[in-house]
């Protein structure tokens, strides 16, 4: 291993004391002050993670080109509309990513609360801006500000990760207590999750919950605190699913999940999963070939978006899918690897939060498409069309790569 070239950070986190450097301030014996530095060059970025990201992004763009080809033509009269837009955002995202690899992640300590508050405000704006639809009980998820349409829940995920990373790193010794290690986290999480769920955005709520639990678990929160909470959530969830008109569709989706091929009638979502299975099954072992999907011609709804993976399955077959899943697994693994080798707790938690968010989204999306879990609207990172999501993801990868700069990994 060779860490000695890092000049801005004299010591590579190796010992426990160094690793928990934030604890120092708590003790009052500040050994070292982190100075603001706009760009930290440090060691190189983690190449495997970068390449995995670029490979998956490329596969994603090619798949989107194929998957959106027909849809784009039907909707806009131009087969290239969707893919070109996506490529533009990918370019923006890559630029942001590269820039962020130079932006010292420690600065996010200062941004955590600000981003959190902005995120809460944006989430609040959603039902206000779409007041009528909201009151009609329709899902409201989008916000348009300065002509840019985006989902505030995307920002909320990052806000949660950042906030939790910040909080965990600030509580090196008290994470095991209810008062410090559970309650504040639940409040931070609860506010965001509550705002997301009134938008009827179940999937985002689920992702937030996964991120929260994973980060708290790793951060040191005692799992037993969760038990009553989980029971409470389960009861409330069951009640909502079974009796609430507002979430009545969920029950139908669960029924469709249990027997996806025999959905009679049903709404668009239950129809989706049936078509999704037809689509991926059509791929069989070897696939129908790149660009040869039949289901993309309007049969599979959201073929360019949440169900893009099914098109990939159809075109590339089982073998192609396994290769893709291995790539995804490698990406997640490498992300986790980079994160746990971060030089401090904040970096580790931030990195883990980011990679878990991506990993959870991938797994949930694949789970929906393969009918492993009930239908819910989750896009596939690096694949699904959507500019803000793409930019956001690449930006987060940029942060992860920045973390890798300071990590004690051999970057040959």
């Amino acid at each position, binding site marked *: 291993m060779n860490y000695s070239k890092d000049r801005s950070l004299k010591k590579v986190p190796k010992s*426990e004391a160094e*690793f*928990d450097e934030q604890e120092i301030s708590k003790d009052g014996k500040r050994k070292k002050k982190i100075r603001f530095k706009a760009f930290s060059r440090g060691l190189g970025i983690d190449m495997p993670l970068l390449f995995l990201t670029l490979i998956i992004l490329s596969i994603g763009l090619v798949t989107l080109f194929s998957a959106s080809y*027909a849809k784009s033509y*039907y909707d806009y009269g131009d087969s290239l509309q969707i893919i070109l837009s996506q490529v533009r955002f990918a370019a923006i995202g890559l630029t942001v990513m590269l820039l962020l690899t130079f932006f010292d992640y420690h600065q996010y300590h200062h941004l955590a609360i600000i981003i959190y508050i902005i995120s809460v405000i944006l989430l609040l704006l959603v039902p206000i801006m779409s007041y009528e639809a909201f009151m009609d009980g329709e899902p409201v998820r989008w916000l348009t500000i300065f002509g840019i349409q985006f989902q505030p829940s995307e920002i909320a995920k990052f806000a949660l990760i950042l906030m939790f990373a910040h909080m965990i790193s600030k509580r*090196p010794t008290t994470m095991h207590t209810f008062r410090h290690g559970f309650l504040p986290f639940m409040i931070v999480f609860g506010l965001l999750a509550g705002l997301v769920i009134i938008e009827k955005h179940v999937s985002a709520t689920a992702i937030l919950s996964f991120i929260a639990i*994973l980060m708290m*678990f*790793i*951060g*040191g929160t005692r799992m037993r605190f969760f038990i009553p909470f989980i029971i409470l959530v389960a009861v409330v969830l069951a009640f909502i699913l079974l009796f609430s008109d507002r979430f009545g569709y969920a029950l139908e989706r669960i029924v469709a999940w249990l027997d996806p*091929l025999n959905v009679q009638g049903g709404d668009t979502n239950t129809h989706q999963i049936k078509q999704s*299975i*037809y*689509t*991926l*099954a*059509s*791929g*069989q*072992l070897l696939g129908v070939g790149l660009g040869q999907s*039949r*289901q993309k*011609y*309007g*049969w599979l709804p959201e073929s360019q978006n949440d169900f893009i993976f099914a098109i990939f*399955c159809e075109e590339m*077959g*089982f073998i192609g*899918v*396994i290769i893709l*899943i291995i790539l*995804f*697994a490698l990406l*997640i*693994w490498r992300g*986790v690897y980079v*994160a*746990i080798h971060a030089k401090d*707790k904040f970096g*580790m938690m931030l990195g*883990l939060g980011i990679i*878990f968010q991506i*990993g*959870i989204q991938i*797994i949930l999306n*694949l*789970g929906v498409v*393969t*009918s*492993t879990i009930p239908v819910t609207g989750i896009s596939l990172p690096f694949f699904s069309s959507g500019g803000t999501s793409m930019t956001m993801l690449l930006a987060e990868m940029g942060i992860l790569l920045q973390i890798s700069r300071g990590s004690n990994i051999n970057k040959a």
Partner: protein
Amino acid sequence: MTPQKTMWRKALVATAILLFVGFGAIIINLVRWQLVRGEELKSVALEQSLQSTQLTAMRGTIYDATGKVLAQSASVWTVILEPYSLHKDGTRATVAKGLAEILDMEEDYIYERASNKDSYYAVLKRRVESSVRDEIDAFMKDNKIQRGVYMIDDFKRYYPYGSVASTILGFTGDENTGLYGLEAQYDNELRGTAGRLINSKNPIGGDMPFQYEQFIDAQHGYNLILTIDETVQSVTEKALERGIERYRVENGAVGILVDVKTGAIIAMACKDDFDPNAPFDIYDEEEQARIDALPEAEQDEAYTAALNNQWRNKAISDVYYPGSVFKMVTGSMGLEEGIVNENTPFNCTGAYIYYKDEDPIHCWLRTGHGTQTFAQGLLNSCNPYFMYIGQQLGAQRFFKYFEGFGFAERTGIDLPDESASIYYDAESLGPADIATHSMGQNFGITPIQMITGICAVANGGYLIQPHIVNRIVDSDGNIVKTTDTSFKRQVISEDTSQRISNILQMNTEIGVGTATKGYVAGYRICGKTGTSEKVDKYNNELAVLAEGEDKPVMQYIASYGGYAPAEDPQYALLVFFDEPQKEENGGLNGGDAVAGPIFADIMAEVLPYLGVKSQYSEEEYENLDATTPSVMGMMIKDAKIVLEEAGLYYEIVGVTDNDNEVVAFQVPSVGDFIPNDGKVVLYTQGAENDAMGVVPDIRGYSVEEARNVLEEAGFQLRLQHGRVSESAIANQDIEPGTIERRGTVITISFADNTITETFQFSDGSEGSESPEGDDSLDE
């Protein structure tokens, strides 16, 4: 463990769970869907995206023997709505309004049909003509409607000759399905194989890229070429209609003309019939009026009954007692078995005791025919003689021939709904049954069985296979199948056949036989009449007779079966009328009186048409008719030349002194029969109605008297089929009192002896008791 290690451990555990559980479950599902059920689900997926538009196969054409089209399909269109697109484009109201006008439908109905917004297919109207399609296209274009309404190919069945041969042809229902007659019998051959246009359709309604398109051409149905000749069929049908009208026939009629050597049916006419272009309309207007007059509640039932009646092919679906026509069969048995020869004497006393001390059965001639030879017995249609033959044959031998002639089995004609016959078999034939069977009574066969039997008698004893379809050809004209015209078996010897023909030929000779009405000048006709009593019906009516009501009237089937020419039989014809009303038609109910003239009418027109050579005797030649040539529009001088060349006389009405006048009108009209020494009256311009006269009543006159009376009145006399008789004139074709132009030809026919050769039982009631109850009849 250090906090850092703990966190590492936790992070790794979380990651491992995430990856293994998450991806593991996903991979398991992928294996399930892609590998295990891939093949199955792929085809389901393909199926849904491959929209297969059925391309209706053109149903085969049915031709008559001369190539005339009897049934043909023509392109029409089915209008289909695509509610999804109409909803999406918001064009539902416009389309409903526009189509309502074009298709003559209710706007609300169309609007309603397009109500299911998830549907892509709603049939709006079938069988729309191409002109309507063009209108719809224009409407769509004018209103800039791109989609939501489309039309697919379909076919409609046309029957150019209307009701002609309708009971043979049958008709088709929706979806190109044959429902009755040949359309049903040969449905598989006619139907063809529907083609498919398979193209990938996206659910939004557009075609997918072209590479998924597949076109499977519809295999057009095979064409049928019938043995039926439309001309002969029409002649037969018209003759039957005349007969029904003239003899007040209640229950319809049948006429079957068969090639005796091949079994090819040249004509098979049934009344009532229908128009296959509109099979669900009651063709008989009187019947329709009768149904309309019924109380509402009974109308449906009556309507259904009337439909079934008009669709039914009585020639193959109804059984009847053949009556004395059957005696030619019994006679053949007697000759074949050597029980009688032409000269075997038998004494008819007017009644015959067929078994020990049973009550005798009477001859139709109560006084008896006295001593007569077999030939005379057949000519007299003497009941006792045939009971005698039957008795001599015995049950075994009788039934052997009965079976041999095909009366115990369906003929297997290529038409649906052929009935089985009702008869006693060898074991159950008692003496009384043999006696009645020998006279053609007390067993039921179909007309097609009877004529098949007649053919066997005529053609040298060979039982032919009656058939309607001569050959089946594909749409390119290649022969797919030709009907085998070989005979089933030989029942009697050629010698017997020849001998019975010799006797039957005499039967149509005036003063000799009892079937003289079937005589046709120029042809040696073999004929046998039959008058069968509808005993069952009579008994049934008698059984439900209420106190004080009149006894029911015995109804008859008057039939005439024969063939020609006698020296080398070619065509057999059976005509029968079901329930002629003798109270209304002047006492005519016998086979000769009712069916005979119609038989002769048909034969006289058809035999020359079919190319059977005529041979006239001197007397016949004299009375021969000519056909009126056309002189209309000619100048008088040219007309004169034409008529002189034709050996006809002329008379001018109007301007008589100018040979350059134009003939404005002629009587008789072109093509009409005219006596071969008759005259054509030429009317000049403006004089068309100058010479009208009242047709006198000449019934009851002799020919000479009638000729004088008619000439006096300015008319001409013509003998039907050139036949003269000693007896008085019974019929004239134009009713007395009618106003007609000078020169009009009045055709007369004779009554002769209107024999009704029924059988009678000893109690004097005319056949009112059947020797056996019908419930003991075997099938």
